[in-house]
């Protein structure tokens, strides 16, 4: 097949919709006033902001558009949700419950709090990355003020039982914060139906611009501001609004709602085609997270290809025009495998061979077929280069995915040759 460019990293970010871009442009040079100003330049922009806020509120069925706080991005939103809530509620208790596989912006915000008198319980997940709501119940103490769980895992695509968890937190009178970063735009979100008090997301994940994040926070959840200055966002987030980005986010939200079922249907069909094709053409490959279906977000596949490492796969795919991500330790600056893969207790050898492909609305069947044509060749090339593949064929080491009963495990082998246990 002819080389083509296939972007399969939509969980990292997406291109801005044409409609969103066109709506943003006048706000750079024509409608450039500050929404805080009282003159007509300001009032004009204020009206645009209000409309954008209403569109975003509708996307998640917020009780009121006043419940939305605009921030600089998903990361700031999680920071504000967690640290802001903890700050505002520390008199009620100092304990938080999160899952073991939250986004780094949640994990690290919580870790920061543990250095300032808070305690945290991390609820484990099962082999496909699902949180058991009963584990959340068991983790709650009389000091717990907040439970934080994501709607969809950013790495392995697992959809979490947030509604069931919300029943438990409601029963106990505790606030629930849901990080919807990997979910927004790819499944319906209704904050009232879910029963969450805080929820955040980032419009650049669904064809809005970067530099804008949203935090929904209803009247039951108080948060203390962390960016101090003027009284923008009702005093909850100071600083002149990123007007063009908010306008673009509004349009992206409106279209995400309008096109949701069409997008989901299209992307889920590609996901299925990719999944079935890869499994047909490549041996010793494992899906991380649930099978495509009701427990998995429609746009991602997270896979581990045995006997080869992930960065090599990523680079060769990139060379062929296919953009993907990887959770391999070689790819991360800390040289650790993704904490999500560790939490689902994925064997180290498989975590090393990790690749994440996330589809978008503009991907086509031809794109998927190109990947299905290209990826098996890459796997073949890298396996030829890998000492592990030959050692597997010779029975020195065994496969984790399809054990033959011959040879020791890769992990034992790696520990023996490196003189150190794999992390």
């Amino acid at each position, binding site marked *: 097949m002819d080389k083509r460019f296939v972007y399969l990293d939509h969980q990292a970010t997406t291109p801005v919709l044409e409609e969103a871009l066109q709506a943003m442009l006048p706000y750079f040079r024509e409608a450039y006033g500050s929404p805080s100003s009282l003159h007509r330049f300001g009032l004009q922009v204020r009206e645009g902001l209000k409309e954008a806020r209403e569109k975003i509120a509708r996307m998640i069925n917020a009780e009121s558009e006043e419940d939305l706080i605009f921030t600089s991005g998903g990361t700031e939103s999680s920071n504000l949700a967690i640290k802001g809530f903890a700050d505002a509620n520390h008199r009620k208790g100092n304990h938080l419950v999160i899952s073991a596989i939250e986004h780094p912006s949640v994990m690290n915000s919580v870790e920061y709090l543990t250095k300032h008198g808070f305690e945290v319980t991390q609820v484990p997940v099962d082999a496909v990355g699902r949180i058991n709501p009963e584990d959340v119940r068991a983790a709650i103490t009389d000091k717990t003020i907040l439970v934080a769980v994501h709607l969809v895992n950013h790495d392995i695509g697992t959809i979490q039982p947030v509604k069931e968890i919300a029943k438990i937190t409601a029963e106990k009178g505790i606030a629930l914060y849901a990080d919807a970063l990997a979910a927004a735009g790819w499944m319906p979100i209704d904050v009232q139906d879910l029963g969450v008090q805080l929820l955040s997301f980032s419009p650049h994940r669904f064809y809005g611009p970067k530099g804008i994040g949203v935090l929904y926070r209803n009247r039951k959840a108080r948060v203390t501001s962390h960016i101090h200055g003027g009284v923008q966002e009702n005093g909850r987030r100071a600083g002149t609004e990123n007007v063009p980005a908010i306008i673009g986010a509004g349009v992206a939200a409106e279209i995400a709602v309008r096109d949701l079922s069409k997008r989901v249907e299209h992307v889920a069909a590609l996901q299925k085609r990719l999944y079935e094709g890869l499994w047909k053409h490549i041996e010793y490959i494992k899906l991380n997270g649930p099978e495509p279906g009701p427990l998995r977000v429609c746009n991602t596949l997270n896979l581990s290809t045995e006997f080869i490492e992930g960065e090599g796969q990523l680079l060769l795919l990139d060379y062929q025009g296919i953009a993907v991500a990887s959770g391999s*330790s070689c790819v991360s600056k800390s040289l650790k495998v993704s904490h999500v893969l560790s939490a689902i207790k994925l064997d180290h050898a498989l975590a090393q061979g990790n690749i994440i492909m996330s589809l978008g609305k503009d991907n086509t069947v031809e794109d998927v077929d190109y990947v299905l044509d290209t990826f098996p060749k890459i796997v073949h090339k890298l396996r030829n*280069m890998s000492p592990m593949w030959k050692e597997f064929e010779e029975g020195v080491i065994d496969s984790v995915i399809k054990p033959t009963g011959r040879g020791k495990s890769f992990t034992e082998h790696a520990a023996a040759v*490196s003189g150190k246990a794999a992390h």
Partner: protein
Amino acid sequence: MKETKEYTLYNDTVMDHFLNPRNMGDVQEADGVGEVGAAACGDIMKISLKIRDGKIEDARFKTFGCGSAIASSSMATELIKGRTLEEAKNFSNQEVVDALGGLPPVKIHCSVLAEEALKAAIEDYEAKQAPKTAAA
């Protein structure tokens, strides 16, 4: 901004050695084989050597690791061929890094893996030689 397709993670030399690795494979009836693992990231590299008259006649590698590790093992085997064992024992990863035109700081350890695999292969050769010399 250049065009998207003109960007690569590593420089041209590293990319070339990664995409077209030299000396990939196993030396048949090798005189010395070294297999080492990176404690940092868990990757594995294997170098096999053919040694004649105290010189490295052939060197081949196999690598389970990142692009830098593959490029480093390709470059290391290129550099080492034709050297005497004494020279090879002084081989340092810095030579690989320089010949590759530099590696990102976080990827220097991948070149260390190449140095270690080479030295392990020489040790293996010498260990195999020892009984023969003792018997003679």
